[in-house]
Structures are given as structure tokens and as C-alpha cells.
């Protein structure tokens, strides 16, 4: 379990993290999502005592990370897959970390087995691919068999097999009752792995809740209809779709997309006009849409900045 309260990080006058609060509960995978520079990594670094908060605190299993008697037994952490000396072998790297907590060689071999790096155990880390580096980092995180796991962008550089493997590993760790926090910018990956989401943007929490709730709170389901007479259907629906945010559009392949009307409304209207469907589906909002909606402020800010720059240049 991780608890973050009023956590703030100030670099000079610029605040990277602005007094955020959230809790990461055990037994589920919590996704930590946000654009680059939103404060994800800074927050994770403060959780494990690498960076000192300007204000507020972060607790791992009810205590400040620095006060844990055996930190590796409490939390497994992967912040940077490249955080190992290039000239050292993977085995020696793990052995050096394990030694700090009196963890024996058997466990070192176990975690190498779990992460599939046994075959390259005696190779220097410098020759590793990013994916292999991630596996070594995850092996390091698992050494102490910790109840809390914190991973920053763990699927970066993994091949499809690796992504599937880590998804299953994280689901299994959560099913064992552990607290799992992972950050990622890969939306599809989050959808398939996370149960709970914390979305951060410009140092503030934009959303915090179960994945489906977060998605449905900022996106609206669409109704998609396929028919041989898309224009007639669209015309018929435009009269009905008058509510706020309602929209009807004919997409390239002749599919009609309707927002602001239920599938039932659409079907009734079609029946009234004698239009035949060959497909009618309700499409839930995707995490990607939700994410874009939530972080729209950041994007607007950036485009505005670019606009003013180009204006200045053309003048």
C-alpha cells in the first residue's frame, strides 16, 4: 500500500508536483498515467526516497520509505532499466543488491528464472537490449519478495512476448494481494493491465478511480450504425440529436457515428423511416480518448505556445 499526501516538489520556482494526494491499494494493478513532464517519475522518486519532497509526504506500507528497516522486503522498485553498471554482469548486479538485505543466491537464481534472464546471467549488462534491461530491473525489484511493487515504464523496449509476459506477471502479483503501481504511456497496455487509474498532468491529479469509471466519466459511448443508406439515416437522426454534445456523422466507409443518442433511439428512428441496418453497436469510450480529454489542458497550452511562436516568426 502506498499513500501520497500533499506531495509537492519544487525545482526553483517551477513546481513539478503540486500537492497531490492518492492511495495505491493492494490487490490490484494501479496505472499511473500522464504526459511527459507531468510529474510521474518525480512522484515515484519521492516515494522511494531518491528525491526529497518540498512539502507533503509519501508512505510505503504505512511508513516513510527511508524509515523502513528492510526496504527491499517492503517495496520492489524499477525506475530506470539502465540503472546498472555496464561492465558488471547481471548476476553480480543482482548479487550486490541482494547482499544488502542478506538475500541468498538461491533467491537471485529464482528471480532470474522468473524474469527469464538466466541465459544471460553472466553477460555484462552493457550488451543488454532495453528489453533485457527491463527484465533485469524487474528481477531486482522482485529480489525481496515485496508486498509493494513500483515500476516506472516497465514495458518500454519489451517485444510483444515480453509485454504479454509482464502483463501476466503484474496481474499475478496483484492477485497475490500485492500493491502494484506502474506508470506507462502505452494506453492499450494500461487498458489491459490496470484495474485502477491515477492520471496526472502538470503536477496535479486529473483523475483517480477504477479504470472504467475514469473512462466513462470523461468519454461518452458512441453508437455506430451500418446501413446501405447512411445519408438518409444521418438526416433522420440530426433532427433527434439536439441534446448537448450530440453529433451525427458519416464516416468514410459509410458507417454512421452518433453521439448523444442511445442505440434504442437510433433503432426507433430507423424503423420509423424504414431504414435497414446490417450492424448497430454501442462503442464505449477508450482509455485513449479519456486520456486525451483529461490532458487536453496540457495540449492546448502547448499548441498555444507553438502558435504564438509561429506568429512571431511570420510577422
Amino acid at each position, binding site marked *: 500500500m502506498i499513500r501520497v499526501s500533499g506531495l509537492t516538489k519544487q525545482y526553483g520556482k517551477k513546481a513539478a508536483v503540486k500537492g497531490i494526494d492518492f492511495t495505491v491499494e493492494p490487490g490490484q494493478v494501479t496505472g499511473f498515467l500522464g504526459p511527459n513532464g507531468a510529474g510521474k517519475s518525480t512522484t515515484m522518486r519521492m516515494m522511494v526516497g531518491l528525491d526529497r519532497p518540498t512539502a507533503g509526504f509519501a508512505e510505503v506500507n504505512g511508513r516513510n520509505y527511508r524509515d523502513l528497516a528492510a526496504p527491499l522486503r517492503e517495496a520492489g522498485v524499477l525506475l530506470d532499466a539502465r540503472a546498472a553498471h555496464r561492465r558488471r554482469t547481471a548476476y553480480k548486479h543482482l548479487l550486490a543488491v541482494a*547482499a544488502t538485505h542478506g538475500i541468498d543466491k538461491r533467491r537471485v537464481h529464482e528471480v532470474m528464472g522468473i524474469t527469464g534472464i538466466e541465459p544471460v546471467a553472466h553477460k555484462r549488462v552493457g550488451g543488454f537490449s532495453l528489453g533485457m534491461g527491463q527484465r533485469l530491473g524487474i528481477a531486482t525489484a522482485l529480489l525481496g519478495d515485496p508486498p509493494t511493487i513500483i515500476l516506472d515504464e516497465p514495458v518500454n523496449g519489451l517485444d510483444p512476448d515480453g509485454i504479454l509476459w509482464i502483463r501476466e506477471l503484474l496481474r*499475478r502479483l496483484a492477485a497475490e494481494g500485492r500493491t502494484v503501481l506502474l506508470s506507462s504511456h502505452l494506453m492499450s497496455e494500461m487498458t489491459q493491465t490496470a484495474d485502477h487509474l491515477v492520471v496526472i498532468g502538470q503536477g496535479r491529479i486529473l483523475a483517480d478511480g477504477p479504470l472504467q469509471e475514469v473512462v466513462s466519466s470523461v468519454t461518452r459511448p458512441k453508437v455506430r450504425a451500418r446501413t446501405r443508406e447512411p445519408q438518409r439515416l444521418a438526416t433522420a437522426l440530426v433532427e433527434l440529436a439536439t441534446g448537448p454534445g450530440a453529433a451525427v456523422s458519416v464516416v468514410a466507409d459509410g458507417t454512421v457515428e452518433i453521439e448523444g443518442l442511445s442505440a434504442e433511439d437510433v433503432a426507433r428512428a430507423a424503423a420509423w423511416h424504414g431504414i435497414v441496418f446490417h450492424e448497430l453497436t454501442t462503442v464505449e469510450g477508450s482509455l485513449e480518448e479519456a486520456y486525451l480529454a483529461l490532458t487536453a489542458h496540457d495540449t492546448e497550452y502547448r499548441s498555444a505556445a507553438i502558435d504564438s511562436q509561429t506568429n512571431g516568426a511570420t510577422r
Partner: protein
Amino acid sequence: MSPQTSPAHNPTRHADSVFERARFSGLIRSEWVKTASLPSTVLLLIGILAAGLGGSMFLAVTLESSGVPSVASLEQTVNDVLSPMVILGQIIAGIVGVMSIGAEYSSGSIQPTLIASPRRLPVLGAKTLVVFSIVTVVGLVTAFASWTATYPFYAEHGLEARLDAPGVLVAVLGSAAYLGLCAVFGVGIGTLLRSTTIGAVIVFVVTLLGPILASVLPYGLFSRVVRVLMLGNAGDAMSRVRDAPGPFLDIWTGHISAGAGWMIALAWTALALTAGALALMKRDA
């Protein structure tokens, strides 16, 4: 509870976590594994042995061709045996120290190190102890090897420095301990600067370049004090046997006794280590 991720996992684990707390001995073992698993460090340590043994052998073998002194001087013989190791070894030792922490920052492995030991100061303590021990032992081995290898050459001319002659053993131990202190100085500087390159330059300046520059400064109180305070001159004093006893410390003649040398070297080490410790505790990693 999957047996695949946690064979040792059991619900009561937290109850007995007091038996699993991270100990200082674990940190020492960790630092030892780190040092011994880096080829560059091992090569540098071999370099101390090679430079010390090679240099003293060279001086011993060329003793006759360069002119055998007519008066036996214990100071001269001991200096010929130990100074090659001290002069070249002090830089190598300092770099070993700088690298032991600088490499952690440049490779990013400082992150897992501090995550495993978030209180940080024990990491610096363990690193200091391990680096000091390894370098001092290598210094001792080199000093005794140099002494043993060159002994016959000096004995031939009655110039030998017997270990039981007054001050000889102290000089041998002093030379090895000086290398150890140089390494600790390097650990402190490396922690402060987080850079192997700049750290190595500073080691070079205070051990070798500084004493040379200070000796060519215009004669005055300032240049005299600077000269006496240089780490390299303290090392020279620690590894020297005096034919004629002198004062504890004389700024004007530049005479530094072994005891004063120890104190100056310890002061440098303590200063660097304290600065490094403060930076380590205060800064974000």
C-alpha cells in the same frame, strides 16, 4: 499466492521482518561484490602493484650504474623501495576511490544502491571501509613485495633497510595506509562531485601536481604553508625514515614528521569524506 513469483511468500512474513532488517554487514558484502566485479577496479589495483614493484626494482637494479652512495643512508634506501609505490600509487588509489562512487553515478547504479539503502550514510560508510581495506592491503602487499625483491640488491652493498631498523616498519605501514587514505579521499571527492573525471583530476592535483607547483611558488609564508599542507607531501612524510630526527612540523624548511604526515593526510580524508557525506544526505539522488 503463486509459487512462481514468491516461493518464500507467507502471510506471517511481516511479523518476523525484524529478523530480516538490512544490516551494515550486508552493505559491506554488497560493496565488496561491486568492487570485485568491476574489471577496471581490479586492473587499477594490479596497477599499484606493478608500478610499486616495477619502480623499486628499477631503482635497485640500476643502483650500481647510477652510483652506489658511499655512506649508507636508511632514509635513501627506504625511499627508493617505497616511493615508486607512493608516488604512482597515490593517484591510482585516489582514482579507485573516486570510481567506486563516480561509476555508480555515471552508470545509474546509484539508484538501486540508494533504493536498497535509503538512509544513504551507511552506504558511504560501507564503501569507505571496503575501499580503504582493499587499497591498504594492496599497498601492504606491494610494499612488502618491493622490500623483499630489492633487499638482495641493497644487501650486496651493505645498504639494506632491515625491517627491525628504527622507523622502517612504520614507514612500510604508513605508505600502505597512505594509499588507503588517498582512496578514501577519492570516495569523498567522488561523492561530492558525482563525476569520475573531475574527481580524478582533483586527486591528481592534490597528490602529485600540487606539491610540484607549491615547490616552485615564490618563497613566502603562503607558498610554505601550501607546500606543507599538500596531501602528496603528507604521503611522502608517512612513508619516510629520517636519518636525522627533525621537528614535528617546520613550515619554513618544509620538514614534515611521519606523525604530522598522518595528521595532514587524515585531515584531508576527513574533510573530503565529510563534504561528500553532507552532499549525499542533502541532495536528491
